[in-house]
């Protein structure tokens, strides 16, 4: 669908733009923090809108279920396929057909570039949770595309 592809193209262009070699320092290190921050700001703002019609969350797990269902559906048109937790603040969200990866690979080709395409989503989850008063660290793991795992470590104070 045309309106979906616009988002995907914009996303991949932002990544290309963020990774453009800076003439000043000339380092070849890949810096994805800009992309992650864009995701954080977007997640923070969209959360206010998405939770408007939602009753108050009972606990952290309830919040994570919301992320897996409604939040994910809103952005990626599908739900998370698997949610695991150790009940001590670690949650693993598995998406078997992650939208940003399905387009270009099915297997190991381009595997080394995969981290670029999950940074935005890590920020998005982190921003959304931050607005719900849950501080977290979100990392992603891609073993075989197009499936992807997001690890959420909730920081308790």
């Amino acid at each position, binding site marked *: 669908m045309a309106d979906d592809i616009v988002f995907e193209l914009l996303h991949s262009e932002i990544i290309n733009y963020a990774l453009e070699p800076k003439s000043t320092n000339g380092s070849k290190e890949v810096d994805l923090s800009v992309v992650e921050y864009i995701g954080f700001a977007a997640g923070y703002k969209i959360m*206010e*809108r998405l*939770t408007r019609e939602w*009753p*108050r969350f009972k606990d952290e797990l309830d919040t994570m279920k919301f992320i897996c269902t409604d939040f994910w559906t809103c952005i990626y048109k599908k739900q998370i396929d698997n949610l695991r937790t150790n009940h001590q603040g670690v949650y693993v969200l598995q998406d078997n057909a992650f939208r940003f990866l399905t387009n270009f690979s099915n297997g190991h080709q381009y595997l080394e570039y995969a981290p670029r395409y999950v940074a935005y989503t890590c920020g998005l989850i982190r921003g959304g949770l931050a607005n*719900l*008063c849950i501080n977290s660290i979100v990392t992603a793991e891609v073993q075989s595309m197009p499936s992807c795992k997001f690890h959420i470590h909730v920081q308790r104070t």
Partner: protein
Amino acid sequence: MAVCVAVIGKDNSPLYIGGIGNDTSTDNELSRQWLVHTALDALEERLATTNSNNATASANAARTDLRDLYLGLLYSTDTHKIYGYVTNTKIKLVLVTSSTSPSGSNIRDAEVRTALRRLHALYADAICNPFHLPGDQIISQKFDRQVKSLMVNNV
């Protein structure tokens, strides 16, 4: 009628306080802040009982009621009634109505609920403004205008 509307942030800092009317006790910023400030304790008390009741798994009907974002009448003074609403993101919305004005004595709960839900919608739009930084005061004139018209028309 509604005389004052306030948006309070996660850390209890005022993000927006707006009021209308020529009532002497609400026509200046300071007295509005004072009115809203007195409501915060009642608001947090209400939230705390919500959480503890959920933990002890009280009756189902009661729980669904407590999970409502709208918290109802927080308390009333001789001249004003103060209603509260807390979003999932811990933003507190407070609406103050005057109970002395002729139309103020018979405000229905449902009307206040609708007004606060619309205020929440306006707030969600306001923070999507790219010039607004989360946690800052809302200085958008559009938001101000919309809130004032909400206060005139709704309650």
